[in-house]
């Protein structure tokens, strides 16, 4: 069975979302990074770099949240998250790398400023620079979404999931996506999916406990 190591507050949330979408049976092994649980020998045996998330599934041991989602989609989501046709599969790979290489540096840069710093400590110049860099990147996505509701066509796939979970950082860091109406509508459709609602519920629960 699929075991996901990490906290729902971390990038492991992306993998929980994917597992929920596929209705794949999984176990979440919660690691609290504030307690340094990801630096303990038991976890380092799974991921020597001590980063979250990781998964173990049979003899598969792997890291990198967006790559893990490609694995989950291929194993548990054939014909759904992982499209049946070669063309859709190519798009899923392309947009997974695009999310990592193009969107995440900007989105994570913004999230870090907003989430880990108090308002008066934030580097507003950096936030504005990242917002400027973000605009043409969102524009690339928006151009694709002019003709289809989801990236690969009419169906929600891994491409949407991996891009949406990074776009969430833009939204959480108060980047206004409304100037790109197609992207805004797409994001709303992705974020409103049951798989993601479940993740949000788990987050709210974790915040209550903390």
């Amino acid at each position: 069975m699929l075991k996901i190591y990490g906290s729902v507050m971390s990038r492991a949330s992306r993998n929980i979302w994917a597992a929920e979408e596929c209705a794949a049976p999984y176990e979440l092994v919660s690691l609290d990074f504030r307690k340094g649980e990801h630096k303990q020998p038991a976890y380092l045996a799974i991921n020597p770099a001590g980063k979250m998330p990781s998964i173990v599934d049979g003899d598969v041991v792997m890291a990198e949240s967006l790559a893990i989602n490609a694995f989950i989609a291929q194993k548990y989501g054939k014909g759904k998250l992982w499209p049946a046709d070669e063309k859709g599969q190519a798009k899923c790979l392309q947009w997974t790398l695009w999310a990592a290489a193009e969107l995440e540096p900007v989105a994570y840069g913004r999230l870090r400023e907003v989430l880990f710093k108090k308002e008066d400590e934030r580097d507003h110049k950096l936030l504005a620079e990242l917002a400027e860099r973000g605009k043409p990147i969102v524009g690339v996505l928006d151009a694709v979404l002019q003709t289809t509701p989801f990236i690969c066509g009419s169906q929600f796939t891994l491409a949407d999931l991996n891009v949406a979970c990074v776009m969430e950082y833009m939204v959480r860091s108060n980047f206004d996506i409304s100037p790109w109406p197609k992207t805004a509508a797409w994001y709303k459709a992705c974020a409103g999916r049951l798989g993601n609602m479940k993740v949000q519920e788990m987050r709210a629960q974790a915040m209550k406990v903390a």
Partner: protein
Amino acid sequence: MITLYGKAASRTSRNLWALEELGIAYKHVPFDYLKGDTKMAEYLTINPAGKVPALVDDDVVMTESLGMNLYIAHNYGIGTLWPEGKAARAKCIQWTLWAATELEPPAVGRLIEFNFKKEHERDQKNIDTLAEHTKWPLNTLDAALQRSTYLAGAMFTIADLNVAAVCEYLTRTKFDLTPWPAANRWVSECLARPANQKVNAMKMAA
């Protein structure tokens, strides 16, 4: 047949390397972003973002160099670049994303400082910071290569190709890899492969 767009002296080299490893027939259209080829209407219908590389393979049109290599391996390299077995395949996807998220940002930062700037324009503070940010991923890579010959096991796969292609930015900017002996040996071995040598010759010829 795959048509690959982008000149060899760009990230297109990664895809040329993969195609050469497989020895499959392909068509190369060496569009040069410096000459504005990639902003022409002909290319923008393939990649509206106007970046290279891109590939066309029947009805598949795709961008993102490392993603394209997964596609090439997956569709044309089963048993070679795309290994048999779920565990090894998982490693290929993992290391591809790792190359993009962990290694490429500091590596491309170095390349910009060293290859696109004159000596007196270089930002030494940035170069030092990038060197620090390179050490962590190299520790991770070295640890993995102490455990196995190649990243997904005993065989050279797309995991090695994608990571080594990014490591090339480090060797090209004279980053000293000797503190990471396993990674150092592996980088030299990967980059010395005949398919990559052929790509290097294409870069020089252009």
